[in-house]
């Protein structure tokens, strides 16, 4: 919103104030100022001139040769305006003067020297009227600088509208002036009004409000004998500077009041609108608004109507047919207050956000409606003294806001602020902002003024803001809190996440990625990935990606095609969220999952698989100090990209935590036939349910151990896990550990079988073992293995 300092100075004295510094303080105490414009500085040496002679231009039909009397001399200029006539008094820019970017010099125009320029309103920046020369109607001595009677010089600042959303009182100059007066510690002048009670004896307007929920107040009055058509120039300058387009006196006055008080008003032609109904229609209607658009209005939109037809959309815009025209001499003036939400909804539905609706949305003060009418009449009569008021002030005041009184004391304020602001200063600030203050020493009872009571100020904390913002946050002493020494509670899960990430990135050289929480439907289709139905977003802008993912893997697989060209050897992982269906209470079963994908062209599929398995083992060992167990996998039934054979579930201390798999060949071929891909998903929350094992240090023997390698013949289908179980069946206190050294397969040498070499380490804590003792143990071990069909090779 644009604010004119000239306008402000009408309500509070700004003499001797550094305006730039004031605007900076306004930003720090009230609302953000985005820009400051110095207006009128580019208009120089423009004086009142009278056209005394008009001749045709020898070389042009459009141009005229004009002689102008500017008091001290008569100058000759070439003028292209259509409205040149003898006797016209116009603004005239002298040689050496300036109009906007144009410096006035003696120049030939179509071959004739011109020594100055007659100006239009647009050229002077007063309005966008460029139809002809501005005609000065008032009587000023010729040669008077126009700045002596036109307030062209002004400082206009633009306040960020967003920072005013909660301040309905700041949507007009008077409210801004109140803030500035408080900042300057100077008084705010009362508004000059006409007391409408003098019209009480006149007939009221026939007004019926049929919707008592959404109409808070509807005030109106009629007036007649309006003869002036154009607003005074200084009013038009202010409107233009504040971004409004001057139209005609009545429209300009309603806009002027809106810019001054923040109260939207509407002037209906009284010859077309004589009574008012505020209601909704039971059927949708079509309605021609002021901007000449035929709009569809639904049954929920509140309308202003006369006896027969609609004349305005409440709080948004009036109708074309009932609007004032150049021949209007009598008006019905509306000054109303509607429910902010309702106006917002109407404006949104119509796609028509106006200056009025934007203000109503902020929840305006209903006390303002009559005030605005009284101010309107005052300004109108000053301009056009012959105007007659033809009705009493008709006022349906339906919803009053509660009067709010807030009690607090200095202790509360000191605790909240952390600094010492004196009670005198608090009283002064609140009074300046219009609060009524009853004070007993350091105890306060303050009444909230109506313009702050619609939603903004309701409680003690709001008073803190009023006092501190005017006090100035820059003036605060700042200091640390004091607190007892106490240990910080660690977030185990977050620490674990960082450990996992660090391990995968820095030991396994993988890259962390982020992906969306929904399935990328198009990519999944391209890759032939089927996903289960899951909960969906109902209003996504990208409608095809509306399903929340229940697993993280498709997101990661979807990244492979993007990278396979430049990075065929890739390892990617993400810790992200999924919704694993719904819980019993109907809420999403949100889970945090770790997804890993490894792809390679150099490694075989088997190598990729085991590389991934190793990474998972290391992660789980690192976090929980437990070696995971790999088991038959249920994921194969769920997801079509899981390999039916080469996939396994991951168990940690009997808790299922995830699975790993190589990519199903069908999906693999959709990406790249030569790419070997393995992936895994681990549920972080399930993993965190498992208690970590403490690390146990064991004494090592002082005596040397004996190492025996045994190559065992087993069927190809026999898993290492089975061998391990058989070995564990042999009770032997000296067998400290054993581990896999090699697996050898050769269809010719060992048809149907494989040779598994395992290294056994025998050691005693008390002595050096004799070789025949060890042999006995090996024999015992082999006897157990033989009984299970495992032979020594």
């Amino acid at each position, binding site marked *: 919103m644009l604010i004119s300092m000239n306008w402000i100075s009408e309500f509070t004295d700004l003499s001797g104030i550094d305006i730039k510094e004031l605007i900076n303080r306004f930003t720090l105490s009230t609302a953000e100022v985005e820009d400051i414009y110095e207006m009128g500085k580019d208009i120089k040496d423009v004086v009142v001139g009278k056209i005394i002679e008009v001749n045709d231009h020898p070389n042009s039909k459009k141009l005229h040769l004009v002689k102008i009397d500017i008091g001290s001399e008569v100058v000759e200029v070439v003028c292209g305006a259509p409205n040149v006539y003898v006797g016209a008094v116009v603004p005239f820019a002298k040689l050496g003067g300036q109009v906007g970017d144009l410096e006035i010099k003696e120049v030939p125009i179509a071959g004739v020297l011109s020594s100055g320029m007659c100006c239009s309103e647009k050229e002077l920046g007063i309005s966008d009227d460029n139809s002809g020369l501005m005609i000065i109607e008032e009587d000023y001595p010729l040669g008077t600088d126009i700045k002596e009677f036109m307030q062209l010089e002004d400082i206009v600042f633009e306040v960020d509208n967003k920072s005013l959303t909660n301040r309905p009182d700041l949507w007009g100059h008077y409210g801004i002036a109140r803030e500035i007066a408080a900042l300057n510690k100077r008084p705010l002048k009362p508004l000059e009004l006409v007391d409408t009670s003098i019209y009480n004896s006149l007939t009221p307007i026939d007004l019926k409000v049929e919707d008592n929920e959404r109409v808070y107040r509807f005030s109106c009055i009629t007036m007649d004998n309006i003869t002036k058509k154009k607003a005074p120039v200084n009013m038009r300058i202010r409107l233009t500077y504040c971004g409004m387009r001057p139209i005609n006196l009545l429209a300009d006055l309603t806009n002027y009041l809106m810019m001054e008080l923040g109260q939207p008003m509407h002037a209906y032609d009284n010859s077309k609108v004589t009574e008012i109904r505020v209601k909704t229609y039971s059927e949708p209607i079509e309605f021609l608004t002021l901007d000449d658009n035929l709009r569809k209005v639904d049954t929920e939109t509140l309308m202003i109507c006369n006896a027969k037809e609609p004349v305005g959309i409440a709080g948004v815009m009036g109708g074309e047919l009932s609007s004032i025209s150049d021949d209007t001499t009598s008006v019905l003036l509306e000054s109303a207050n509607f429910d902010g939400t309702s106006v917002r909804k109407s404006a949104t539905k119509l796609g028509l956000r106006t200056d009025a609706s934007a203000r109503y949305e902020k929840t305006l003060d209903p006390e303002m409606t009559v005030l605005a009418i009284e101010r309107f009449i005052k300004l109108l009569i000053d301009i056009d003294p012959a105007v007659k008021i033809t009705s009493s002030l008709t006022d349906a005041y339906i919803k009053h806001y509660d009067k709010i009184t807030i009690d607090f004391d200095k202790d509360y304020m000191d*605790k*909240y602020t952390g*600094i010492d602001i004196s009670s005198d200063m608090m009283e002064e600030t609140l009074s300046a902002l219009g609060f009524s203050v009853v004070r007993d020493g350091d105890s306060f009872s303050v009444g909230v003024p109506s313009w702050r009571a619609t939603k903004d100020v309701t409680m003690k904390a709001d008073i803190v803001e009023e006092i*501190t913002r005017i006090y100035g946050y820059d003036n605060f002493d700042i200091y640390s*809190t004091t607190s007892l020494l106490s240990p*910080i509670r660690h977030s185990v899960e977050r620490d674990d996440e960082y450990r996992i990430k660090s391990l995968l*990135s820095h030991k396994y050289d993988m890259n962390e990625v982020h992906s*969306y929480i929904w399935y990328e439907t198009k990519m999944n289709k391209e890759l032939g990935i089927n996903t289960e139905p899951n909960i969906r977003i*109902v209003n996504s802008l990208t409608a095809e990606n509306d399903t929340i993912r229940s697993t993280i893997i498709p997101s990661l697989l979807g990244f492979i095609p993007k990278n396979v060209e430049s*990075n065929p050897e890739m390892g990617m992982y993400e810790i992200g969220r999924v919704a694993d269906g719904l819980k019993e209470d109907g809420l999403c079963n949100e889970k945090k999952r770790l997804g890993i994908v490894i792809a390679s062209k150099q490694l075989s599929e088997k190598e990729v698989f085991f590389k991934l398995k190793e990474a998972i083992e290391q992660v789980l060992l690192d976090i929980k100090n437990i070696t995971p167990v790999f088991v038959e996998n249920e994921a194969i039934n769920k997801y079509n990209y899981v390999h039916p054979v080469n996939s396994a579930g991951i168990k940690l201390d009997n808790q299922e935590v995830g699975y790993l798999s190589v990519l199903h060949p069908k999906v693999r071929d959709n990406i790249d036939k030569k790419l070997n891909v393995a992936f895994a998903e681990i549920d972080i929350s399930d993993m965190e349910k498992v208690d970590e094992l403490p690390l146990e240090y064991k004494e090592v023997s002082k005596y040397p151990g004996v190492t025996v390698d045994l190559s065992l013949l087993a069927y190809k289908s026999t898993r290492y896990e089975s061998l391990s179980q058989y070995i564990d069946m042999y009770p032997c206190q000296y067998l400290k550990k054993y581990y896999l050294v090699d697996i050898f397969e050769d269809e010719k040498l060992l048809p149907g079988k494989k040779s598994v070499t395992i290294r056994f380490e025998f050691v005693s804590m008390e002595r050096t073992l004799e070789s025949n003792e060890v042999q006995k143990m090996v024999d015992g071990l082999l006897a157990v293995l033989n009984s299970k069909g495992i032979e020594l090779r």
Partner: protein
Amino acid sequence: MLDNLDKIRQQFKEELNAINSKDELEKLRVAFLGKKGLVTEALKNLRNLSSDEKKIAGKEVNKLKHEIEEAIASYHKTLEEREYLKEIENAEHYDYTIPSSREAGTLHPITIVQKKIEDIFKTMGFIIEDGLEIQTEYNNFEAVNIPKNHPARDMQDTYYLENGQILKTHTSAAQNTIMKKYGAPKKGEPLKVLFPGRCFRNENLDASHENTFFQLEGMMIGDDISISNLIYFMKVLLSEVFERDVKVRLRPGFFPFVEPGFELDINCAICEGSGCSTCKQSGWIELLPCGMIHPNVLKMGGIDPDKYTGFAFGLGLTRLAMMKYNIKDIRLFNSGNLKQLKQFTR
């Protein structure tokens, strides 16, 4: 006899001079000191002498034996040195300018920035918390004082799910849960908590708009937390985050979950406050919203606003990462594009 010993000594010297390898040296040792070696033979011959002669000659033979032993040991060392020199001379010259092939993995830029900030807050005693991404309307709106009919609620940028839940629009959605989890703080032990999280806005993507982005929010609640503390903390914390002595400036700002609410600006690092294009000539950069936690929000979190006060602040983590790495296009973060993401090694 003694003559013979001189001969042996002479012969040894001559032969030693001709030796070039440890093998030859060993042969020489055997030839002189071995079982049938010249010196050994000379020792054996001693028995043919009279006892007086034996005494004198015995001394001489042993002397010779020691001489030869020492000479051999010393020559052995020389030969060894020579061999090492030779090995080094013949060594392959490695080209240490060949680049190493291993490429370490990377963390996501958000993780890097988030961890750094979390670490700063941890040193100041903050607990790190987490929150759900799929939230109830209550947690995301009502509990932070955004009632039904508030304009923020009918904005189209909230993702609504079929079951009425939403994708959280801001990290504040975790406030209520966290307050209830920890309860009212003990006297002198304010609750200090930081909760980063991923947020969602139903927007179309472009270089500066993402529908999925990270924020980071912090709160401090206690029996005597004041506006003065808030300003102090923000100044200290932001100085750590930006690694310079940051100046902060507070302006009134309206956010339903704080009262008073502020927009916090920091002094522009580029022009140091004198005004430039980055700070739109103001010398200040709008950085984050903060404020004193609204009494209604405390109340809904089960904390008595008459006894406790607190402050809260939010920081755009994604925006911060963009500032830190000078990232121009926000779509990088969720792109999975390794060409880009592999650059974030620290």
